[in-house]
Every structure is written in structure tokens, then in C-alpha cells.
């Protein structure tokens, strides 16, 4: 069938950009990558893009379709073509463009290298056999270890757009892959390093990385886990950590968020003195409740019980962010299928295998 694309071409030497439209004949099963291949073969051999495995595992073909990052090999074109929409294909964001759809990934890898991306096991002699670790203790890094380093999350990262030095979702997810690994002995050093400026607390929580990740790594969740682990380890000097901590303290003690105290608790008393005039203005317009006496919620007991429960269950670190990876994937499955899962041998399905008789042939 006919499939059309508009592609942002870029010639780095001439510094020229141009939006070019292509229409090709492609099979119904074609992915975006297949269509690009047809364009390159039959229309314009100078088109540049990366590709390799075409099965969503090598991470080569990250690019943008209509402004959002996708893996070209994962993106089926038939519905788009049938709707008559002509998608715009462009290079990923937050990385310099080399040519057409090819970006310079060096800034990406530089950040991966910045999180000490290898196991720091704390032993010299590892012993004769493998480390004994239960599956349950490895499960918390299941999602992080799915990362294929395609760059789709980084392409969409709003924090990185504002601060190019921000470590970013891929590197921080890689960091969590080691922080959550029971074999790694550098957890505290890692959390201290990741908690510095341009680290964990500079994420704006826009969740674009979770949304665009083609492998379900959920980098924002990984960043949340790092934050929770950092606070659990008492690594909380960053304003972001203090801010988060005050939410908890405030809810635990009074059941409310005491906004008046939020600023000094986050920024420190000295810095917040500068905000006094602004705060007085807010107060005058009734926007700030009086700080004393503290306003205690009627059912504050419930809030305190919740706090204690999380502590008793040992969910005050990363475990509090995601209960269990397996539980989650099962929840996702139930969400997809509804409460009433189909019978795998139901009338719409292929028949169950025939039993095998004593002679060996099917009966």
C-alpha cells in the first residue's frame, strides 16, 4: 500500500535543513524502519539513519515521529497510512544532529560513564562459584536491566533541555541498576554522587521518559527509587531531598502539608529570609495559613499509622516506590485484559493440541 512520510533532512556541512516528503509502496506489515529502507533504496540513497537488529533490542533506530521519540523498527505504519496522516520524522532531541536522522550519541554515553557504570562488588577474590542471590532480591532492578540505551528518554527529557548537564533518565536508570543490585557495595558512594547538582533531584518529574521508553524501563521510577534510597541512607543535603522529606514530616506530624515551613525546611533559614516579603504578601491575601499554632488534621492518626506501616513493611526506600516488579507486570496484564481474562482455548482460538496416543501418532 501507499505510505507517505515527511522527513527532516539535515546536512551538517552546509548547515541546511529541509522537510522532504516521500511516498512509497510498502507491504502492510511495514514498520517505520522498513519504509525508511524503501525510501533509501528506491528514492534517495543519501538518506541517513541508524539501524541494526530490527527487533527492538539493539537500540540503534531511535528517532522522532511527529515530535515524539520512537524506535523505528517497533512502529507499525499501516494504521497511520490508512488514516491518511503523513507523519513527520526527525532526529532525536537533546543531542546534536550529525546528518538527517543520525544524532551524535557521545553526550549520551558521557553521562552513562559518569555514573560509574559497572558493578563495584567490594571483593577481590569473588570465590569459585556464582554469588548466591535470590530472585526476589534481583527483581527490583528487573526493569532497569531492560534498558537498550536507545536514547528515546533522553531525547524527550525536559530537564535536560533546560540543563544540558543534567545526568538524565538513561544514566540515572543505569545508576539504579547498580544501587538496587545486592552484589554492589558502592551504594552509598553512588547515591552521594547521583545526589549532587545535575543529579536525581534535578528531574522535573514530567514523566516523558516513562512515556517514551520503548522497553518499559520507566526511568522516572528509577529516579524516584534513587531519591528514596538516598533519603533512607541519610543523603539529603540537596534541596530536593529536603523538600521531599518535609512533605513526609509534615504529613506525619499534622496530617497536612505545612507550606509556611516548607520554604525554610527546603532552602534553610538564611535563604528563606529573602522570601519574607513575598510570604507577607501571600499572608495578607489569605494565601498562607498562620504557622502557629500548627493546624492538626482531625484524622492525623491515619496519616501517622500509614507512616508507621510503611516503616514496618520495610518500604521506606526503593521498595516503597515499586512494590514488586512481578506484581506490576501482572497488574499491567490484568489492566490490558480486564477482569475477565479470555480462555486461551476459547472458541476464537486455535484448537488445543491433539493428545498423543500410545503408538506415537496423534489420536
Amino acid at each position, binding site marked *: 500500500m501507499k505510505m507517505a512520510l515527511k522527513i527532516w533532512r539535515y546536512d551538517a556541512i552546509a548547515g541546511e535543513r529541509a522537510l522532504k516528503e516521500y511516498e512509497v509502496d510498502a507491504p502492510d506489515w511495514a514498520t517505520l524502519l522498513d519504509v525508511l529502507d524503501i525510501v533509501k533504496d528506491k528514492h534517495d*540513497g543519501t538518506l541517513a539513519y541508524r539501524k541494526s537488529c530490527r*527487533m527492538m533490542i*539493539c537500540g*540503534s533506530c531511535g528517532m522522532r515521529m511527529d515530535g515524539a521519540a520512537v524506535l523505528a523498527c517497533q512502529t*507499525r505504519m499501516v494504521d497511520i497510512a490508512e488514516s491518511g496522516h503523513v507523519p513527520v520524522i526527525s532526529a532525536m532531541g537533546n543531542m546534536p544532529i*550529525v546528518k538527517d536522522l543520525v544524532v551524535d550519541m557521545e553526550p549520551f554515553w558521557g553521562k552513562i560513564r559518569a555514573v560509574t557504570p559497572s558493578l563495584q562488588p567490594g571483593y577481590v577474590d569473588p570465590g569459585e562459584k*556464582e554469588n548466591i542471590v535470590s530472585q526476589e532480591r534481583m527483581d527490583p532492578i528487573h526493569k532497569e536491566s531492560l534498558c537498550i540505551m536507545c536514547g528515546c528518554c533522553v531525547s524527550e527529557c525536559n530537564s535536560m533541555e533546560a540543563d544540558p548537564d543534567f545526568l538524565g533518565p538513561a544514566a540515572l536508570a543505569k545508576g539504579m541498576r547498580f544501587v538496587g*543490585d545486592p552484589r554492589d557495595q558502592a551504594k552509598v558512594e553512588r547515591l552521594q554522587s547521583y545526589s549532587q547538582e545535575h543529579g536525581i533531584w534535578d528531574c522535573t518529574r514530567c514523566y516523558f521518559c516513562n512515556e517514551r521508553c520503548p522497553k518499559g524501563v520507566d526511568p522516572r521510577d528509577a529516579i524516584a527509587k534513587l531519591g528514596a534510597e538516598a533519603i533512607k541512607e541519610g543523603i539529603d543535603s540537596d534541596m530536593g531531598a529536603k523538600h521531599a522529606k518535609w512533605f513526609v514530616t509534615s504529613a506525619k506530624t499534622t496530617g497536612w502539608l505545612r507550606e509556611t515551613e516548607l520554604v525554610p525546611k527546603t532552602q534553610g533559614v538564611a535563604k528563606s529570609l529573602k522570601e519574607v516579603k513575598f510570604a507577607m504578601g501571600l499572608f495578607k491575601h489569605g494565601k498562607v495559613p498562620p504557622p502557629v499554632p500548627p493546624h492538626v488534621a482531625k484524622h492525623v492518626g491515619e496519616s501517622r499509622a500509614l507512616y508507621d506501616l510503611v516503616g514496618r513493611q520495610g518500604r521506606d526506600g526503593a521498595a516503597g516506590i515499586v512494590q514488586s516488579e512481578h506484581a506490576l507486570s501482572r497488574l499491567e496484564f490484568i489492566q490490558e485484559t480486564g477482569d475477565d481474562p479470555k480462555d*486461551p482455548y476459547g472458541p476464537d482460538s486455535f484448537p488445543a493440541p491433539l493428545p498423543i496416543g500410545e503408538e506415537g501418532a496423534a489420536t
Partner: protein
Amino acid sequence: MDTVHDVVVVGAGCAGMRAAIEAFDAGANVAMVSKIHPVRSHSGAAEGGINAALGNASEDDPEKHAFDTVKGSDYLGDQDAIEILCREAPDDVYQLEHWGAVFSRTEDGRIAQRPFGAAGEPRTAYAADITGHVLIHVLYEQVMKRDIPTYEEYFAWKLVIDDGRCQGVIAWDLLRGGLTSIGAKTVILATGGAGRLYTGTTNAYACTGDGMTMALRAGVALKDMEMMQFHPTTLAPTGVLITEGCRGEGAYLLNAQAERFLVHYAPNAMELASRDVISRAEQTEIDAGRGLDGNVLLDLRHLGVEKILERLHGTRELSMTFAGVDPIYEPIPVRPGAHYHMGGVDTDVWGLTSLEGLYAAGEVACVSVHGANRLGGNALMETITFGKRVGRHAAEWSLANTTVEVPASAEADAERELKTLLDRTDGERPWKIRDELAETMHVNFGVFRREEQMVEQGTIVQSLRERFERVVVEDKGEVFNSDLTQALELGFLLELAECMVVSGLARKESRGAHARPYDYPDRDDENYLRHTVVTWKGGAPELDWKPVTMTKWQPQERTY
């Protein structure tokens, strides 16, 4: 000569990175050259696992592993090499775990192992169904830790031969353009396979046999080139891999009558027979009209939601994306697809070729541990164990020998050849030749082979090679000129196809992946228990034979 190293590794998949790490740790100045970033390498697409007799799921030992491998190879594997692989495998897997590989675990916290085809014990260590992905990333972590320099996105094109030694490579810089000559005391080829010779293949676009042809052009022999493995479970239309791990976990193969047809072909092992046996069974069913649209069905439904989500989530993702089928509810349509080249650059057990200074490891090499048919899970193991051995040997040799010379004439010849190609403006672009090659190889050199089809394929490949002499590269630019590199890749593939046909015609028997049911249906140990060896002489392949090394296992009838 632009730079010099002790050891240059061409290709940075599992074998290449493992070799580089070993050479680095042995004290050599090592660099990797790769046309794609290391983690993009196709080792990462390996799914099911890596075989080592760890004995975590049953009583097992390296000797059992070796016997299964010898039998699986249809006795064409060299038994000394197989014994080395199976003996060193357990420690090599433990080392990967110590480096941080995220393996799946048993109840008692050890590395989990699952049953795999033609293996007498559950021996395949795995990380769900993304084992290759986990290994490639752990190896790259170790590469980053050592800060091993990588010529990333440099397309290796020619080996430098001087004074009877391999002394480096000449590579095209994809990002910036231009040829670079990289001098090296030793060069390790680790470029992987050549699945792109076929339309339906599990292999990545990058798998174009570069290293095999570079060696061939340097006068080094290729061994057992007729032995292309067809994997029994690949998705139509393009051949995306569905792991053998599905069958390891208990999946069934069904024909259109919902019959587990393997009962007629491998009544004992059933779905866990060897790959060559199952691919032939599937093709027979499909040819007899008992398939569905050219496929048979892989049924996971009885495994249940939990097992599928936990151990086969990647498979579910692939079948939903590429076949529109959720394996929890529907069987997956699958068919045989080109998967793995047992053949490759002829090496000894240290990866050394007949050319001093040149080594090969991984799929590009033919040691041979796989013979006529590779067992699932043995490829990743080979990349690690032989990657390590080759890295060590190359480093030791390099540290004992000093000079490197890249003659100016080698650079000038490469420049001239490239200019001729780029200056050509009239003619055919390569894609049609590439497609015709892959389609005809599939028809004429597939699961079953006929004499007349192989002869015809030889003629086709020769005419494609003539057309290739006049191809035009449309992109004349310096920056990311993949039009150029794809043309060079096609050149590599065409020469390999010719070697395969010559080897296939010479082997007048049926053994492992080389099945000739119409004229030579049986294995003929008297005449063909030996390797085919091809060298390039005067623009054409020349065939010779080489004995198989036997240690303790005499050929027996092979049934599953």
C-alpha cells in the same frame, strides 16, 4: 598509518568485547573497531541462554556437555575444541556473574538453567529471554571500566598484510568520512555472521560477513561454509527470532491439524530435538500442505500467564509487535529462518588463522565447535570462552613481538579502489542485487538442497557479482555515508555466497544443516567426515578438505 596498537579487535559484540577485555588485562594496548556501537551488536539479540555444565538444575558435567555438542554437530565438530569449550565454560559463566550479569536465579539463589534442544541436561543458563542483551551490556560495562578505546562507527574494510603478517586494518570513518589505517601487531576478527545472505533471517542488518570475506581476501581459508543453520522458530515475514527457550520451557510445535508433528520425526526429544532436525520437520510439514500460510505454530498457551510474563516476556513483546499475536491466547506462527553460520574463518583452538597475526573468534570463526549443527546456547558460550582465549593469545604474542608496518601502498590501493567506486555515476544501485541474492539463496540454498538448484545458485551469484562490478553509490558525501558502506557489505556477501555454493556442491551427503534428501539422503562418514575448506584463488573459490579432530567419540547414528 594513523595509529598503532598491540591488539586490534574488529567487531565489538560478545566475542570482540570479551577478547578486548582479556587482552587489556594481559597488559596489551588494545582497541576495538566496530561499524556500530558495541551494545548495538547482534550478540545482544541472543535470547535463550548460554550453555555451561554448572549443575544448578541437575547433575551435570562438562563431559556430558561435550558429548551433546559432538552429537549435535553431527560429528563434524572438532572434539578437542569442543572439550576445551565445555571444560572452560562454567568458570567463564561464573566470571560473567561476578562482573554483574543479571542472570535469572534458582530457588536457592544460583544461576538458573533451563532445558534446551538436544541437551541431555538442563544446562542453559539464562536471563529470562534476553540473555544476549544482559551479556552484551555487562561486557560493555567492563569495557567502560577499563576505558578500552573504541573506533566507534568505523567500518573495517581491508586487512593490512605485510611481510606475511597481518599488521592492521583499513577502515572507513562513518561519522566523519575518510579512510583510516590502524596498525596492529595482531588483529582479531569478531565480526559475527552473514545471515543477511537470506531474506528470512534472524540476523541484524549488520550481519554481512565482513570478517569472513576480509580473511578470505587476505588468503585465509574459510571452513564448512555450507553449514548455515536454520532456526526452527522465526516470525514471518522478516525472520525475527523467537527463542528456543520457549520450547525449553515446554512449548509445543503444532501443524494445521493441531498435531504435535515432531512425534513423527523425533519421538523422544520432541520439541527439544536439535535445530536441524526440527527445521527439516517443519519444512516437510509445510511442503506437504500441513502448514498455515507457510508456517507451523508454536503453542505457549498451556505454560500459563505467569511463566510467559516472567520468563518469556521478550517473546511476548516480539510476537505482539511483529505478528500481532499474544502467545497467552494464540499460538505463534513460526517457520525456519537463516540464523547462524557454523562455518567461518578456519582457526585453531586459540583462534589463530593460517596468517600470522590474524585471529578470529565467535560466529565469524570456525574452530570448529559446532560442526554441521550448533546447539542452542552454545554460540554465546563460544563467544565468551574463545573470545577470552583469543584475546589472551593475541596479547601474549603482541607483547613478545614489536614492529608494525602499514605500507603506504596498502593505503594508496584502498584509496584508489574507493575512489573508483565513488566516482562511478552510471549504473545500477546495489539494493536490487542484494535482494536478488537473499531471495535466491533462500530458494536454492535453504533447509533442503538439490544439486541442480545449487548449480543454478552458483550461476546466479556469478552474474550478481558481475553486476556488482558496475554498481553506483548514490551518496557521494563524507558524513554518515551508509549508502557506501552498504555497497561494501554487499561485496562481502557475494563472495561468501559463492564459497557456500562450492562447499555445498562438494559435500555429497546429508549432515547437520546440509540436507540433500533427493540425492544423498544419508550421512557418509567414509567420504565426508571432514571439513570443506575454501580459499580464494584468481577471483574464484578453490575447494579443499581438512580432517575432523576426534578424541573420544566415534560417530554413531544420530536420532533424537
